[in-house]
């Protein structure tokens, strides 16, 4: 649909209507210098470097914000333009402390430095101005150096339009113009200005005015190795890049290429860069109330011995393996193989809500195993979005950002089930609060309205749900839009029963969001890798590839691979395992990651855990295995939408990988198998689930 034809530097070019001159030029390999333009933001027009000459116009225009028009004849590199650009750049340098360039963290990645180099600017005398002094902000994440700010406006824009926070604004006039963090027009700290430390501003800042804290003299930008990864701080699974020098992780950014709507939240950007709590690097055992360091072999031996004794005394049903939802697909595969094939129990649940599992399986049934949920870019293009559940902003901020953008800058109408937060009121179109009958009744009522219920029938539904029929009609009307999506926040699954899940799916179907091959439904679990764990066999009732354990033929098939018969007895889900651990029915427990702080493990005779830091170790643990930090892990993770991404190790772990510990535990318990490397593991898992195979 390239419907506009124009000439740039004598070259005939075709572009879509609405494309900017800059985009059209870049698409055909013509570079125009820019400083404030950022591909993920709308054009800002601050820097004026992107000037081009257009035949017939009296003066140059900016390429970043002017759309192409049919028949345009454009020159991007005339002597006049070169001179003007140089003059503008020189002005910018006249208020930038370029004597700092020698020691600046951003050196080599600074866009101002790059322009000064490519345009060969001279170094002008500094102009005097009132600028705030170097970083005054007392916050753990972001370092601001206002003297270096070139007032490109990117941080202001990203925070407003993407994050929806408006932490920054321009203040002052003329040469004394500043970018400040402000609340109600008064300058204040980032925190007071409402910053959620998502770090988006840091990622877009072209200079070192905004930097990640704690990277001082850690390494030059050009020394940094870029390692692609995936964030598993929540179930959305954002892609990211880790920058390391040696084994030191200096910063985490969104991927340079890739989706336009790729953002991170505070947890992804800063959360795992440096563990705040003390790291565990060697296995530990509890003796006489004190932690002592023990050999890895010793830890394995103690655990295996205890588990095998419990199995002998009480049966395999007294053993269980649980997790905090963060295991990689490979780790999940190994742990379930150990639990089922070696320990002989289906009591394995590495983390996910039963209602969520039920919903995912039902949706899979309808849409087919290959249908994936929406990307953030797709959400931004939505015509309507139904948001169910209350904890999106806090648990999955990036989805909240995308939805808000879709509402404020796109054309999406937002329908909210559950109370809307105060700052959402501006963009939520219809807000439906479930009555005493709960979410199920409300979802059912919306579904009914969507399938055309009216009159008395709708009134009845409305009465049951505790909302007005008019609101239902409105919601249904909006949700009928093209590109209609539903996003379900983790809080929904806590209280959802089968009826609620059924209602949710019925609603999605009648809104056209769910059908063969279509899955415009994003169901977010509280467990980060819930989807990968489910597909790799990490839940009690499903073997890798989501094959039912209950089916004898399936067990037979798996037994051939596992080299041992599989237990037929249904396993317990996570909450039931914890209850059984409290009551003493479960006597041997292996916990991978954090255990819910409220859980009582009183009845457990032997508790082995695998944790990266001390603060995650539960009370009463007998043996602690160390675990790698996120940036030390190589492994696959499946996002809530169903996309598999590989996380690559950005640094060498000082400890064994999770899957290795799993193999070693299995071997210590008598298994005859062991995987030489990840490739071997993935090869075995692959025929049943492609979860560990190539990225989907």
């Amino acid at each position, binding site marked *: 649909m390239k419907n506009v034809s124009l000439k740039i530097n004598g070259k005939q070019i075709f572009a879509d209507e609405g494309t900017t001159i800059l985009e059209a030029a870049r698409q055909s390999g013509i570079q125009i210098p820019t400083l404030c333009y950022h591909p993920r933001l709308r054009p800002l*027009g601050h820097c004026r470097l992107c000037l081009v000459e257009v035949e017939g116009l009296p003066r140059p225009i900016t390429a970043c914000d002017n759309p192409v028009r049919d028949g345009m004849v454009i020159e991007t590199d005339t002597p006049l333009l070169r001179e003007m650009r140089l003059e503008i750049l020189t002005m910018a340098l006249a208020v930038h402390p370029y004597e700092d360039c020698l020691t600046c963290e951003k050196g080599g990645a600074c866009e101002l430095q790059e322009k000064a180099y490519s345009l060969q600017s001279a170094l002008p005398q500094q102009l005097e*101005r009132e600028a705030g002094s170097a970083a005054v902000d007392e916050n753990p994440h972001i370092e601001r150096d206002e003297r270096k700010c070139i007032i490109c406006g990117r941080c202001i824009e990203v925070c407003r339009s993407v994050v929806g926070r408006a932490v920054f604004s321009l203040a002052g006039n*003329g040469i004394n113009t500043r970018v400040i963090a402000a609340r109600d027009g008064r300058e204040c700290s980032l925190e007071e200005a409402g910053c959620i430390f998502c770090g988006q501003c840091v990622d877009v800042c072209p200079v070192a005015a905004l930097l990640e804290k704690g990277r001082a003299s850690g390494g030059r930008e050009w020394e940094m190795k870029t390692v692609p990864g995936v964030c598993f701080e929540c179930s959305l699974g954002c892609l990211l890049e880790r920058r390391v020098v040696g084994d030191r992780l200096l910063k985490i950014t969104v991927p340079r290429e890739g989706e336009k709507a790729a953002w991170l939240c505070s947890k992804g950007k800063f959360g795992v860069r440096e563990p705040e709590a003390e790291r565990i690097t060697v296995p530990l055992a509890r003796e006489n109330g004190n932690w002592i360091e023990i050999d890895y072999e010793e830890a394995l031996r103690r655990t295996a011995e205890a588990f095998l004794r419990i199995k002998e005394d009480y049966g395999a049903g007294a053993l269980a393996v649980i997790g905090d939802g963060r295991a990689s697909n490979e780790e999940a595969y190994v742990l379930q193989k150990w639990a089922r094939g070696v320990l002989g129990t289906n009591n394995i649940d590495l983390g996910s809500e039963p209602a969520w599992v039920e919903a995912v399986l039902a949706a899979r049934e309808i849409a087919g195993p290959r249908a994936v949920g929406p990307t953030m870019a797709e959400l931004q293009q939505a015509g309507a979005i139904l948001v169910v559940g209350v904890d999106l902003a806090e648990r999955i901020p990036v989805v909240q950002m995308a939805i808000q953008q879709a509402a404020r800058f796109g054309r999406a109408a937002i329908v909210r089930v559950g109370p809307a937060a105060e700052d959402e009121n501006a963009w939520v179109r219809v807000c439906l609060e479930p009555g005493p009958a709960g979410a199920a009744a409300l979802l059912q009522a919306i579904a009914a309205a969507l399938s055309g219920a009216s009159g008395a029938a709708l009134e009845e539904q409305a009465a049951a749900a505790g909302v007005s029929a008019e609101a239902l009609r409105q919601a249904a009307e909006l949700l009928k839009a093209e590109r209609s999506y539903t996003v379900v926040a983790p809080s929904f699954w806590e209280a959802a029963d089968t009826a609620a899940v059924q209602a949710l799916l019925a609603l999605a179907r009648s809104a056209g969001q769910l059908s063969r091959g279509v899955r415009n439904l994003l169901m977010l679990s509280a467990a980060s890798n819930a989807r990968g764990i489910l597909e790799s066999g990490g839940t009690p009732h499903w073997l890798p590839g989501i094959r039912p354990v209950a089916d004898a033929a399936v067990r037979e098939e798996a037994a051939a691979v596992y080299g041992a018969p599989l237990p037929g007895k249904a396993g317990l889900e996570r909450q039931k395992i914890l209850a059984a651990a409290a009551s003493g029915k479960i006597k041997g427990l292996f916990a991978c990651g954090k255990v819910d702080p409220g859980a009582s493990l009183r009845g457990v005779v032997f508790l082995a855990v695998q944790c990266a830091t001390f603060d995650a170790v539960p009370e009463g643990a007998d043996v602690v295995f160390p675990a790698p930090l996120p940036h030390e892990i190589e492994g696959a993770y499946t996002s809530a939408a169903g996309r598999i991404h590989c996380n690559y190790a950005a640094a060498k772990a000082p400890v064994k990988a999770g899957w290795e510990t799993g193999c070693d535990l299995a071997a210590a318990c008598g298994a005859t198998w062991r995987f030489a490397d990840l490739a071997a593991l993935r090869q075995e898992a692959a025929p049943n689930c492609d979860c560990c195979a190539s990225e989907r």
Partner: protein
Amino acid sequence: MYEKHLMICGATGCLSSNSGKVKEALEAELARRGIKEKYRLVMAGCVGFCEVGPIIVIYPDEVFYCRLKPGDMAELVEKHLIGGEVVERLLYTSPDVEVPGRFYDTIPFYRKQVFNVLRNSGIIDPEIIDEYIMRGGYRAFSRALKMERPQICDEVKRAGLRGRGGAGFPTGMKWEFTMIAPGEKKYVVCNADEGDPGAFMDRSILEGDPHAVIEGMLICGRAIGADEGYIYCRAEYPLAIKRLRIAIAQAEEYGLLGENILASGFNFHLNIKEGAGAFVCGEETALLASIEGKRGMPRPRPPFPAVSGLFGKPTCINNVETFANIPLILREGGVEEFASIGTESSKGTKVFALAGKIRNTGLCEVPMGITIREVIFDVGGGVQGDREFKAVQAGGPSGGCIPAELLDLPIDYDSLTKAGAIMGSGGLVVMDDRTCMVDLARYFLSFTQKESCGKCIPCREGTKRMLEILERICDGSGEPADLDTLESLAFSIKDSALCGLGQTCPNPILSTIRYFRHEYEEHINEQFCRAGVCKALFQYYIDPETCIGCTRCARVCPVSAISGEKKEVHAIDQSLCTRCGSCVEVCPKNSIQITRVRRKADVSS
């Protein structure tokens, strides 16, 4: 029935020269004599001649009294109102008129003026809607209600009206763009920010005839399909805002604003937004941002407001004077009448504020195409104190200067632009031989630098660099290369800044360099400011030939730099003189003169 109508100028200019007190005294005098009921006293709009305020015009006698003091009222009542005889003493006199002027057509200031926009100002009570209606008000609007929308735009186009806010964009075209822009909701916005220092045309229109602007906006709303309007008025104009509020309330009461106006199905609501008074808020996109409650900052165009303006909706934004012209055009036969005045490319009249070293400061409305000489010398009465005319600055900080050799330039958009100035909103500041053109450029640059919103590099940083150079030249440390640097910077900024503020702020520099390059060169090469403004670049000396030894200069000098005996020639001690200029003001013989700074070496040799 009233015997006579007494129109007291109640605009800001005359109020500041105490017309309020004059009115009180008049009222008291009438009350004392118990004849209050016979006369109608009106605080009316500006009649333009602020120089000679306070002013009272008495109708139906058409007698123009000026420079009034409260103490004159007893005589005025006694002689004129009761005795029926004109008080000669209070009439307009001036060296260039032989007979004291009784009314407009005998006073030179008014002779070349044409009252279109100011047709009602000073004649009606701006706080009473009936007076506006009686003079044909809202007739054009009710005519427009019966017209098709494109037809309205077409009439405005055919009249050739161009925007009076500065850039002179054809108003009819702007209306048409907004009319055809897709969208249910549209807005009409009136730009009453008037940020040019010294300009007060828009204020006077709003104070003197608010309904003309409201009617213009209504017609615009009808034409483009808008049902809501905003008047963005600077908060420093409390009287204009008050009169607007009254006018809106009265129009609402009469069913001229609100729902289903005149049973036509057309709805229109009008809001007033008070602006904080930043110059850049007059720029249309900044103004819209400010109405939306954001920082008043321009944004890149496109999209133009006609497509995406206030709250993202198609918006037609025009200046106060532009709107005030509309009712004239839309009345029966108005198009032809309007277009009959002016030049080929600039139709109608333009209101100017005369300021600076001009004799008749005030407001005037003249036909387009009139020469600058006519405005300054015939209407304006020439330069104060009959000093030498040097130049006139047109268009304020965004405009340029026009030198004496171009006095016969006709005033229209294109001629002014060609000469390096702009029509702007209509400020004319006259300068005599005591104005330094380098200092003038420096003054305007320091203004724009302070007003720059700071968004784009060329304006934020570039104006500062130009200002630094100008300050250096004024200090006497300019370098020969500075002129080239200035010009090169000026051209770059003009062509690269984001909004009109940055794009036009080099104009004062470019035009002063163009016409007064020699003054720059004198500053740089000879360290001399011939106007005696840049303190480091001249000295005062007392001309021994003419000094009469009156000692006045010595007495006012704050640093006692002047010595001399009574009746003997005085002298200035250069090491003490701070060049404050106090002595120049008091010397009865004009003996204190300007000279080049004499270096020590020069003196001894």
